[in-house]
């Protein structure tokens, strides 16, 4: 398999070999994702793969299209073109971009978790934190109050949320705690795919470090495939195994996270990396 963007800036093709040692198949495969708003092209021809247990980072400045890609993967933003598959029995061989409303909702509730930069996008700010997490389970059909309470507690505990604050609504919580509630809600159904949109942007540095640690532990303990979007290269270096660099709606470079950050190939990536160091 030759990646269409596996091309160096000097146009010497650097075709990487297909995987030979990795037995896994990618959980997520997306090809040719495209999104336009009127005459503006936000995302054009983006391809990506994520393996089980792997974290893919997407970096780029505001307006690069990275968050739009994430919202397309969450099926909350319809794509104009593209092919998006998850290697799950119930959706085998299906382009998820063509799902009807009912199945799209089912897929999002059961298999995709998302954490937004802005907590109010993912949470009801006036409902208790436990209730926010339980809501996810109710949407998936769970009705027993005892099960809901236990499952919500377990999920919040896994996200390292202090359980004595279970009944507090997110609006009374700090930014770091709000992100933990979002994370608990995201992982409550044990999804195959976790999407993180600037999950620690805006948090104090020390709080950010604690949230990143929680994410690393979760990744180690469950083999969730994760896509994290951030403009913060430190976050990407900490979380991501591989990185895509986006600019103007396109992927300009991809590689192992340390390679992209320590030996960037594309002029734009070099500029981005050196501006941060």
């Amino acid at each position: 398999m030759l990646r269409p963007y596996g091309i160096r800036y000097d146009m010497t093709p650097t075709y990487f070999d297909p995987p030979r040692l990795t037995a896994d198949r990618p959980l997520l495969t997306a090809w040719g994702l495209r999104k336009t708003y009127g005459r503006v092209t936000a995302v054009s021809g983006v391809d990506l793969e994520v393996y089980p247990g792997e974290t893919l980072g997407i970096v780029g400045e505001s307006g690069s299209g990275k968050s739009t890609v994430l919202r397309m993967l969450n099926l909350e933003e319809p794509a104009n073109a593209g092919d998006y598959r998850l290697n799950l029995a119930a959706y085998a061989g299906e382009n998820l971009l063509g799902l009807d409303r009912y199945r799209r909702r089912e897929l999002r509730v059961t298999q995709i978790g998302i954490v937004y930069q802005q907590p109010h996008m993912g949470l009801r700010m006036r409902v208790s934190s436990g209730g926010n997490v339980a809501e996810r389970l109710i949407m998936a059909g769970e009705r027993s109050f005892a099960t809901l309470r236990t499952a919500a507690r377990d999920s919040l505990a896994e996200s390292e949320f202090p359980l004595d604050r279970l009944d507090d609504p997110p609006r009374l919580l700090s930014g770091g705690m709000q992100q933990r509630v979002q994370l608990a809600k995201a992982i409550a159904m044990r999804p195959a795919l976790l999407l993180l949109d600037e999950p620690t942007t805006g948090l104090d540095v020390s709080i950010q470090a604690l949230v990143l640690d929680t994410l690393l532990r979760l990744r180690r303990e469950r083999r969730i495939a994760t896509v994290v979007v951030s403009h913060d290269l430190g976050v990407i270096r900490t979380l991501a195994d591989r990185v895509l660099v986006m600019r103007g709606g396109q992927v300009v470079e991809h590689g192992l996270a340390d390679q992209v950050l320590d030996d960037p190939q594309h002029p734009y990536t070099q500029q981005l990396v050196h501006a941060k160091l």
Partner: protein
Amino acid sequence: MRPCPHTHMHILNVHEFSKTFTIHAINREVPAFTNVSFHLQPGELLVARGANGVGKSSLLRCLYRTYLPSAGHAIYQAQQGTVDLARAAEVDIALLRRNEIGYVSQFLRPRPRVSAIELVMEPLLLAGVPADDARMRAGDWLSRLGLKAAIWPAYPSTFSGGEQQKINLARALIAPRRLLLLDEPNAALDPGARAALRERLSVLKSEGVAMIGVFHHIEDVRDLVDSEVKIANSQ
């Protein structure tokens, strides 16, 4: 051109390997190393020699794929098959880093709010070792390198360079590896820790771990060295 025919003996066969950095902002090509060839057997320690700044570290980083090699091949015999480290799929490199190839860098990259012992445990946890077992083995490593138990739960960002280097060594050497890339592992160490490191490398060698090293104190390991490769660039 194909690599050396006796590949079956070798865990690694490096052929006309080169790295040149292209710095677009100043429109310059900066060669790191040019046309390096060597091969390595299990249990062999190979030392990269050359003047300062000829890219000895860059060679190790290209083999680990932190740097993208510019030309040549590095044929590696993995447990599940043969790959060219110069162009293997990213997921395969990530797999090899988890299971087979270790890199001992000169500097620790501490993470905020992660304690010394947790940093050392992490490679074992990633390999699926239970936490209690991992903690015990990490403690064993740290004490052998002379790091007092009192500071294991502390955050290494405040530690001295030597202490950070010990944590880094323990972290890099704790999980079993088939190929180790040693980038001045003894540069900032006190004599006790240097002796402990030498002892550990000797054991790893006898266990069949292949190693490529750049050493600041070559005298520490002189009797462990099997071969050397001269690194030069065309600048």
